[in-house]
C-alpha cells in the first residue's frame, strides 16, 4: 500500500463517518478493523485502545451534559418537542462513534507507515511542494512546542516551582508553566530565525528534500479505497 492510498482511504472513511449513524458507523468500524488486521496486524488492538482512550473523556463530558443536564437530543430541541434521555444518549453515542472512527483511522494510517520518518511520509504524498512544506512547518512548530515544554519542565521542577506528578501546586502554578513554555518557544524560534536560517536559507532546502516522483496507486490501495467507498455509501443510505 502507498501513503497516498492510505490517505485517500482515511479521507473516505472520515467523510462516511461524518454522514453515517448507528449501523452505518458500525459498518465503517468493521472496515477499519479489517484494514488494521490486514495492514498492521496485532498493532490494531493498540490503535483501538488509543482511539478509545482519546475519545472517552469527551464522551463522558458529553454524556454528563446531554444525558444528565439537558436530557434531550439537539434535534428534539430544534423541533420544540419534549424529548427524552434515550434520544440524548443516542446522540452522544453517534457523535462519540464518529470521533472514535476519525481517531482510529488516523491511528491506523500512522501505524501502517510507522517505518517511515515524517519527512519520508510527507515526501511521498502526491501534493504540491508548498503544501508539503506547510505540513513540515506545522510538525516543526509542534516539535518546538514539545521541546519548550521539556525545557520549562526542567527549569520549574529543578527550582521546585512545579512537581513532576499531579499536585495542587501544579494547578496553582499552571500559569507559570504556560509563560515559561511560551518564552521558550519564542527563544527557540528567534534563535533559528536570527542566526541559522538566514545564513543557510534552510527553508529552501525543503524544496529538494520534499520533491519526489509521484507513485501511482497500487492494487491494495484501490481495494481498500473501494471498500471504504462502498461502506460509506451504504452507511449514508441506511441512516
Amino acid at each position: 500500500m502507498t501513503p497516498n492510498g492510505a490517505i485517500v482511504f482515511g479521507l473516505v472513511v472520515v467523510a462516511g463517518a461524518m454522514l453515517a449513524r448507528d449501523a452505518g458507523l458500525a459498518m465503517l468500524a468493521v472496515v477499519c478493523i479489517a484494514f488494521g488486521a490486514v495492514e498492521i496486524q496485532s498493532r490494531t488492538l493498540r490503535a483501538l485502545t488509543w482511539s478509545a482512550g482519546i475519545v472517552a473523556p469527551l464522551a463522558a463530558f458529553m454524556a454528563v451534559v446531554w444525558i444528565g443536564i439537558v436530557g434531550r437530543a439537539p434535534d428534539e430541541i430544534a423541533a420544540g418537542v419534549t424529548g427524552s434521555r434515550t434520544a440524548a444518549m443516542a446522540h452522544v453515542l453517534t457523535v462519540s462513534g464518529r470521533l472514535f472512527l476519525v481517531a482510529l483511522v488516523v491511528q491506523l494510517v500512522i501505524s501502517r507507515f510507522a517505518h517511515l520518518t515524517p519527512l519520508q511520509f510527507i515526501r511521498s504524498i502526491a501534493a504540491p511542494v508548498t503544501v508539503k512544506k506547510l505540513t513540515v512547518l506545522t510538525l516543526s512548530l509542534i516539535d518546538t512546542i514539545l521541546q519548550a515544554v521539556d525545557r520549562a519542565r526542567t527549569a520549574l521542577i529543578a527550582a521546585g516551582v512545579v512537581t513532576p506528578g499531579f499536585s495542587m501546586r501544579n494547578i496553582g502554578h499552571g500559569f507559570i508553566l504556560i509563560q515559561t513554555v511560551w518564552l521558550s518557544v519564542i527563544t527557540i524560534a528567534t534563535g533559528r530565525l536570527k542566526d541559522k536560517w538566514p545564513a543557510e536559507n534552510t527553508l529552501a532546502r525543503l524544496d529538494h528534500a520534499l520533491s519526489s516522483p509521484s507513485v501511482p496507486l497500487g492494487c491494495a490501495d484501490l481495494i481498500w479505497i473501494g471498500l471504504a467507498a462502498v461502506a460509506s455509501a451504504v452507511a449514508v443510505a441506511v441512516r
Partner: protein
Amino acid sequence: MERVAIAGPNFSGRSETLRARLGADGKSFFLGPYAEAALSGLSSTVADEIAIYRGSAQRHATFPADIAAAGMRKPATLSGGEQVLLALHCFSRSDYGAIGIDTALEQLDVANRARALDYLAVGAFDVTLADNRVEQAPAGWSRQDTARTADGFSLDLEGIAGALKPRTAPAIAISGMDFSYPSKDIFRGVDLSLAPATIYRLIGDNGAGKTTLLKLLVGVLAPARGTISLDGTPYQPRRSGNRAFALATQNPDHQWCGATLREDVARRRNALSGRGIALPSEEEFAALSRRLGAKSLDNHVYELPLVARKRLSWLWPFCGAMPWAMLDEPTIGQDRDTRVALAAAVTRLGERGYGVLFVTHDDDFAACVPHRVLRIGGGTIREE
C-alpha cells in the same frame, strides 16, 4: 580555501563578525552553541535532519558521527555534544561551500573535538570559527582579532565567592540505580558515594549520561530502580522536591522560571520557603546579579546576550541556598579571563563546605579546580 579563527574576549563582537563573514545569502552552514542554532528545527528525527541537508551532489568527505545511525531519535533529545556532531555530519553531506561555527565545538569531548578540528582543517570549504579554547590559530589558519567594546558586562566572581556563607554539604549515596531513555540505556545498577563538601568533575563521551545524572538528582528524571540518600536519609526529589541541588544548566535558557531575574528569584523563593529553605534577601540577590553583569533584577533575561545569560545562570549555585552546586558545561562561550575567575570561584565553593558537581570538556578549566573525577560510560559511574 580560507580558514579563519576569530579571537577576542567576550562582548567583543565575535559572533557578529562571524555572521558578517557568513553573510545572509544562504550559501553557508551555521553551527551555533545550542540546539536552536545547531539544528534546522525542521526535522522530527535524526534521519530527517540528515535528509534535509543532503545535497544533490555531496562535495565534502563525510564527517562520521555515531549519532547518524540513531535515525528515529528526535534531534532535540540528543545531548549538546551529540547535536554538534550531528550538525557537522549534516554539513559534510551538504553542498554548502562554507561553515561558520560559533563556540559549538566547546561542547565536544576531547576525542570528538580533535576529530572535528582535523576535519575542518582539511576540507574543501571555507571555515570561520569562534572558539574560546583556540588560543592560537592552528597552522594554515588565519586569525581575526576583535576588541572588547565599552558596554561589556562586568563580572566580579571574586566578590561573589568571597561573600559565600560557609555550610556543610551532605554526603550523597546512590544505590542500584537504573535509568534508560526509550532508545538508550544510560545507567545499570549504579552504586555511588559522594563525599560531603567535595568537588567532583563528571567526564564521559558525548551522550554518556552526564547531564542525565544531574537531572536525576534534581528530580527532573526518575530512576527506574534504585535509591538516593543524603547523609543517610532517603531523598526522593520527585516526591518531596529538590532541596539540595542548585543546577546551572548547559543551555542557560533551560533554567529560567520567569521573564526577569526578579520574577525568577521570587518564584524560587515562593517554592522553597514552604520547604524551610532560606534564600538570600532580594537586596543580596540584586548585588549578586550585579556582580554577574546584570544591571538590574528587572532585566529581561531573554533579551540579554547568550554569554551574559550563561553567566547569570551561575546566580543560583553561587547564592548559597542549596548545599550542592551543579554546573553543566559552565565555561561554554566564556573567554579565558572568565574561565580562570570561574575556576577560582568554584574552588572557593568547595572550601566553604559546598559540594560541587561540574561537567566540562575543558581540561584547562578543570585543571584550575581541585577536584575528584567521576567517569560515566557503559552504564556505570566510577571514581578515578
